[in-house]
């Protein structure tokens, strides 16, 4: 019940294209869903986050879509750029508890020029 499943494992997109990464969870007590971006040799950094009271959140080229009934959420990167090439992790936490983050397995995104 504590797992967060992420797909695909890797993704190659042309510059200007749309990158889509999906995540699914089981624990209905999760109430905070962030996406973290990690570059090689660096620690993960928060990209965007959503709470289940909204179905979509957009920040610049990055959008989270959230489907509470399906227990799924996704990250959309519009107009993907080579600088977006990184590993992306979805995560979930139960803020009414300790708030610890449970991470997905990660998606390595490569944006080709």
């Amino acid at each position, binding site marked *: 019940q504590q797992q*967060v499943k*992420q797909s695909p494992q890797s993704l190659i997109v042309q510059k200007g294209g749309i990158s889509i990464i999906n995540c699914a969870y089981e624990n209905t007590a999760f109430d*905070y869903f*962030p996406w973290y971006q990690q570059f090689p*040799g*660096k*620690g*993960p*950094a*928060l990209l965007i*986050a959503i709470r289940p009271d909204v179905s979509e959140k957009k920040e610049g080229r990055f959008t989270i879509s959230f489907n509470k009934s399906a227990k799924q959420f996704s990250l959309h990167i519009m107009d993907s750029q080579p600088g977006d090439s990184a590993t992306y*992790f979805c*995560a979930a*936490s139960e*803020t*009414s*508890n*300790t*708030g*610890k*983050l*449970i*991470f*997905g*397995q*990660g998606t390595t995104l490569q944006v080709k020029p």
Partner: protein
Amino acid sequence: EAGVAQSPRYKIIEKRQSVAFWCNPISGHATLYWYQQILGQGPKLLIQFQNNGVVDDSQLPKDRFSAERLKGVDSTLKIQPAKLEDSAVYLCASSFGMGLATGELFFGEGSRLTVL
């Protein structure tokens, strides 16, 4: 504002040896986390501290791993004796609070451990 500091960045040891990693969180952050990131996987929480108390250590292999956060500031993670499967990046993170007050987790650059 200074970020989360970790050292050493890289460590290579033989199996059955011991190793220690150090973390200094962002000033004022009450909550400190140690995550283990095995190559190709997402970070897995090993231990969470709130000030100098342990909040969650359910996934810490306590027969070989130990961690402390004396005085509620910096923290040390120790592995003794190390096994081959401990090869990973050990990430330290901190946040302002926990639960509803967690906010963003700020990660350090990690300590990469290779066990031969």
